[in-house]
């Protein structure tokens, strides 16, 4: 009871009422929302509906009950609704705040609490632990935590799916190999730029090879690449999962880490992380001593594809691959928040010997969305199956993505469809390096 009151009070105090009012309910955002599409156009599962729910709580028209929470959870946070909104409603910020309030006020049952604690505090902020992610997964399964979690039904973690997912994981480098990597990479040829590389957590553990590929590409494009050692997790999972304070802490650590390096750009290859990095200034907007530093940091953040294009990589480097059809799945955050959508396509189209087939609704979320594919399995798989239909229509042999979450999801899609023999999903960086090296 009191929780509901608390939540309502916090909604009143913390949600930006001007932003809620800015939504003029024109409905222009509805067609771009994947959950609206997948729920047979149910208004509550649309951006307009979710904004109305948040405003309804603030206005006292409804209680912030479980169904409100459910709709907010069902949102992918893909932010496809933002660029199409003519009124410029910052939906993502509203959602983040609302989720944070609900999370903070909620009394979780212990297994959920334990899992959240493990994911948000024990795992992601600590890269060395992430490097042991496989053993953690095993711990999760063996400890009984998994069973308990399943019983709560809050995290519908189905073993079947996890098992399928496990199959999609790339071979992880050994710890020794991970430790071996230097922190400074000189440009090939003349040095034209110095860039600081944001490694990310998943990208630097499960997909470390992709990070290495990205660095190699940047070198080829004439960049000196520096990896600030003390950087940490971007905090996106936390910010979107309702753990804002933790996200702020991580943001500050990162700002300090990159301030120590005089780089022209802060470069990364994971749209999901990038979207939070470019919004650090928003995240820290209420902390005057950080605001400016955050803005300076955010202004430098760019996806590696933009840098490659800017550095005329395709002119400098001959790219070719054996004949194949390639399609590209946008990373929502890369597209909708970082506003990068043409650079990856241009790079792919520069590869000789391949055909690029744009898939319908490539800009619709694949259903991965952070840990959404664990917390909202049913919807996530529904969206993925729809996505795979669109992939099939392109006859693609290769699905290119630009974010680890999307990559895992698309690999899962390939497994679900049973087309592992004929279709592969790869990160753009890996594909480009392959194309650059193939003679």
């Amino acid at each position, binding site marked *: 009871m009191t929780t509901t009151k608390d939540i309502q009070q916090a909604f009143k105090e913390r949600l930006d009422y001007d932003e809620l*009012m800015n939504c003029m*309910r024109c409905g222009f955002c509805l067609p771009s929302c994947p959950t609206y599409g997948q729920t047979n156009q149910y208004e509550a599962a649309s951006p307009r509906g979710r904004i109305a*729910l948040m405003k309804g709580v603030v206005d006292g028209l409804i209680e912030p009950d479980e169904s409100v929470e459910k709709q907010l959870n069902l949102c992918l946070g893909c932010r496809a609704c933002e660029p199409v909104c*003519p009124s410029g409603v910052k939906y993502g910020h509203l959602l983040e705040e609302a989720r944070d309030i609900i999370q903070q006020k909620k009394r979780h049952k212990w297994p959920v609490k334990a899992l959240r604690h493990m994911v948000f505090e024990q795992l992601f902020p600590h890269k060395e632990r992430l490097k042991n992610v496989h053993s953690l997964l095993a711990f999760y399964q063996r400890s009984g935590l998994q069973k308990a979690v399943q019983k709560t039904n809050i995290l519908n973690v189905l073993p079947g799916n996890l098992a399928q997912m496990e199959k999609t994981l790339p071979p992880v480098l050994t710890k020794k190999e991970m430790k071996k990597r230097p922190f400074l990479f000189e440009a090939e040829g003349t040095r034209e730029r110095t860039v600081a590389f944001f490694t990310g957590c998943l990208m630097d553990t499960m997909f470390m090879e992709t990070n290495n590929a990205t660095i190699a590409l940047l070198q080829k494009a004439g960049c000196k690449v520096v990896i600030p050692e003390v950087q940490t997790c971007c905090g996106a999972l936390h910010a979107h999962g309702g753990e804002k304070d933790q996200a702020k802490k991580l943001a500050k650590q990162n700002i300090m880490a990159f301030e120590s390096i005089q780089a022209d750009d802060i470069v990364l290859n994971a749209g999901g992380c990038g979207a939070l990095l470019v919004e650090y200034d928003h995240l820290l907007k209420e902390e005057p001593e950080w605001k400016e530093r955050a803005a300076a940091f955010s202004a430098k953040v760019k996806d590696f594809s933009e840098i490659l294009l800017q550095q005329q990589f395709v002119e400098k480097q001959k790219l070719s691959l054996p004949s194949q059809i390639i399609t590209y799945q946008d990373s929502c955050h890369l597209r909708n928040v970082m506003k990068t959508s043409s650079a990856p396509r241009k790079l792919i189209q520069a590869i000789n010997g391949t055909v690029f087939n744009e898939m319908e609704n490539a800009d619709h979320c694949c259903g991965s969305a952070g840990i959404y594919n664990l917390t909202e399995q049913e919807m996530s798989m529904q969206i993925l199956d729809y996505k795979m239909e669109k992939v099939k229509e392109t006859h693609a042999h290769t699905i290119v993505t630009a974010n680890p979450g999307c990559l895992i999801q698309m690999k899962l899609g390939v497994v679900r469809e049973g087309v592992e023999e004929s279709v592969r999903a790869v990160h753009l960086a890996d594909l480009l390096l392959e194309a650059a090296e193939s003679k």
Partner: protein
Amino acid sequence: MLNERTKAKLVEVVGSANFQDSSEARLVYSYDATPNFQSLPDAVIMPENKEQVKRILTICNEDHVPIVPRGSGTNLSAGTCPTQGGIVLTFNRMNKILEIDEENLTATVQPGVITLDLINAVEAKGLFYPPDPSSMKISTIGGNISECSGGLRGLKYGVTKDYVLGLEVVLANGDCIKTGGKLAKDVAGYDLTNLFVGSEGTLGVVTEAILKLIPIPETKQTLLALFEDMDAAAKTVSAIIAHKIIPATLEFLDQPTCEVVEDFAQVGLPTDVNAVLLIEQDGPPEVVSRDIEMISRICSEGNAVSVKVAASQAEAEALSTARRSALSALARMKPTTILEDATVPRSKISEMVKAINEIAVTYNVKICTFGHAGDGNLHPTCLTDARDKEELHRVEQAFEAIFHKAFELGGTITGEHGVGEMKAPYLALKMGGEGVAAMKAIKYALDPQGIMNPGKIFAKDTRKRVVVRS
């Protein structure tokens, strides 16, 4: 609240998945795109076919439950706001294009089909469905028919009613009637088809429609003319028509509108002139070139400071897409955007625009104006903040003055958005007492219990338009 018996009967018809009465569902169907209106329904029902609609209406008629049919809720007259409670009936499960008949040039559709989906489907076959409300990406055909929506192509091609050949309608008592059909000629009895078009869900529920298609125009050219002086732009509109040219599109935007639209769409709209005309002509290439040349000359003679023909299809497309976003883009300026829909004979555009600006000054409110200049349909749009009650009162007064002026010039209170509840108090202004009485006679003959979208079109009494209820 619905009583348990009624609820049980309705659930039996559609199944529990298609009957929602959670507080969440009721909240998200409590509004449409009309500012300041919100009111919770008792339940939301999503029928799957005509049979279910018939049974739902029969039950509601017996139990006196109001029914609010709803497409995508993009209307701007509070037409789908359930101010009298009852059930909201949505058609997203009835969204099939049943047939595109290339021999008879017709399309048969269910009401929940999204306008743009229909347009794309027929264009893929080289056919054309001209009604294109700015909301077409999301509005439904059922909603278009019920509001008799118009669009950017209205000047040359007319509005929705010009393309509805036949309807299947379920009446309040559950009877299902068919009006019109694929026939090009049909004068048997009253023209019920036209009666239901624009009836805003107050006479029955449209469950199927036969729409007229035409061959797609061969080419299209777009032209942008800029004016320092609003009056010159308005006079140019009249001059073009007086030269016996009917452009496909003839849109007008004032300076503040251009500024916000450009801010959103970034297509190179000028932001430093006082009026912009966006003109489009389509048809055979020779005719289009000749007309566009002529229009350019008329614009220059009418003191346009710049006249530019879009270089490419993409550029033209970007311009009209930007125009379509005008209303929502204006919403960026202030929290509350109230758009009106006053229409005057096109020869009176200039006078009307001048009057709107004077009224804005008199009542000290900010009004941006854009609209379908070619058909005299203007959208004076007021930027305000609903929390400022005092200002809102002045907005009310300003709009009242605008309606009176439009009427004085031989115009009407709405050209395409419908009367709904928002403009109900002004219907008598246009129709006169006898006119309203005749309309009411029709309404109660077809819906004696008054269950179909009650409170819409006819005002109970003359009262303030702005209501917020929970």
